[in-house]
């Protein structure tokens, strides 16, 4: 089954039809310690591609390999906690910011993951969220604050791969840059990688990406 050995994460001919006559069909690879940027016009299925890679949606066909093992060899639950998708619209749950950050650790599949308070404080400080905010009700957050909380929530569970859908969509210029730098720094450590959907060229300046995958709008005839 393996066509190529030694690749960290790759997807081959991920095909899916959507919106009646459009479809996406993409292949790419990302090495450990690097970032793959996915660009393209809106409606090209970039978000759908990320959800497929996270196994939140099924492709019509195509395969994904992680550590050269087919994705179906992993349980979907384990896959999703190690290859974590963060949606463009930050999803916040009832309760405080702290409760929001702790939520993933309450799951059976994440029992082995330990809450690292220092790491939480580090990322909050780095992305411009004061630590006093931890006890604040999450629903009072602005869009930009919520986006950073959602990103930190993913970072602290220490997945292997982050799938980020427009991580800077809700951010102002200043927090945008520090957030991108945070992601960039996160990827460099250990065996990690990120696939980031972005159509802001500005973003690319702040990321040490390996490759750009351009998704055109494909229409079925």
């Amino acid at each position, binding site marked *: 089954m393996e066509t190529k050995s030694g690749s960290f994460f790759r997807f081959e001919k991920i095909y899916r039809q959507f919106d009646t006559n459009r479809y996406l069909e993409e292949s790419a690879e990302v090495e450990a310690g690097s970032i793959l940027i996915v660009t393209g016009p809106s409606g090209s299925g970039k978000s759908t591609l990320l959800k497929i890679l*996270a196994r*939140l949606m099924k492709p019509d066909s195509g395969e994904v390999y992680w550590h050269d093992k087919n994705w179906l060899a992993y349980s979907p639950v384990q896959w999703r906690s190690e290859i974590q998708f963060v949606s463009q619209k930050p*999803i916040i*749950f009832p309760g405080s910011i702290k409760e929001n950050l702790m939520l*993933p650790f309450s799951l059976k599949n994440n029992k082995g993951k330990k809450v690292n308070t220092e790491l939480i404080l580090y990322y909050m400080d780095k992305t411009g969220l004061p630590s006093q905010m931890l006890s604040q009700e999450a629903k009072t957050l602005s869009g930009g604050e919520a986006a950073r909380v959602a990103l930190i929530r993913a970072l602290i569970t220490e997945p292997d791969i982050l799938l980020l859908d427009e991580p800077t969509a809700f951010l102002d210029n200043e927090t945008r840059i520090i957030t991108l730098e945070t992601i960039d720094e996160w990827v460099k450590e250990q065996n990690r990688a990120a696939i980031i959907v972005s159509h802001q060229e500005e973003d690319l300046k702040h990321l040490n990406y390996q490759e750009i995958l351009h998704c055109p709008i494909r229409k079925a005839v």
Partner: protein
Amino acid sequence: MDSGYIPISNWQLILSLVLVLITGLVSMLMKLGLFKSLLWGTFRAFIQLMLIGYLLTFIFELNNLLIIIAIILLMSFIASREATRRVTKIAFNPSISSFLTLTASTFLVGIIVVVLIIAPEPWYSARIVIPIFGMILGNSMNAVALALDRMHSEIYAHIDQVEQMLAFGATPWEASRYYIRKAVEAGMTPTINSLMVVGLVSLPGMMTGQILAGMDPSEAVRYQFVVLIMIAAAVAIACLLIVSLTYKKMFNDDMALSENIRNK
């Protein structure tokens, strides 16, 4: 004689038609256009009740266990059809699950009540079993409809949250349990509330019937109490079963949200 059952004779039955005339007069005076429906409704009610009266008399005399079971299964089937007919905006077909739910909860609670508490001779006495099981079914049917409807609308309204939980590595149960809990609560609330006001706001139909049939009110309330807690137990089991049997239908075999839910 003050207590005791007073039968209604044929004459008295015909006399009761005076009441239909009153209803008809209101309809005519107010030009409601309900007169035809009223006559047809009265006729149907009369025929249906007479038929069921004879049928029940027949069944009670036969008192055959297999026939009783067949009747209860038929009642469960009709109740499950009714429960799912009321739940329209749903992305999967819940008919089989609601039939299983209603049958299981009705038999479980019904058998406890009939065999252990009322203990008639023989234990499957149709005169006891059919009305008791019928009351359980009527209430569980409403609860199943409420719980199904609520589960679907809660998950649909929080689809982003459910998907985010899945993205954290949650199982379908972990991702939706908060909303499933709300659905069970919605199904059980009317029954729990009815426990609070019974006897204060209304006298339940069964108790009223027993009092009219000559039973001492202090005896009738004992029956009513058993019936109320029996209904509460059956409703709780039904709500739990229906959500357990159906929540997975909102997810696919890869433990992600099903396309039906996403496209609703």
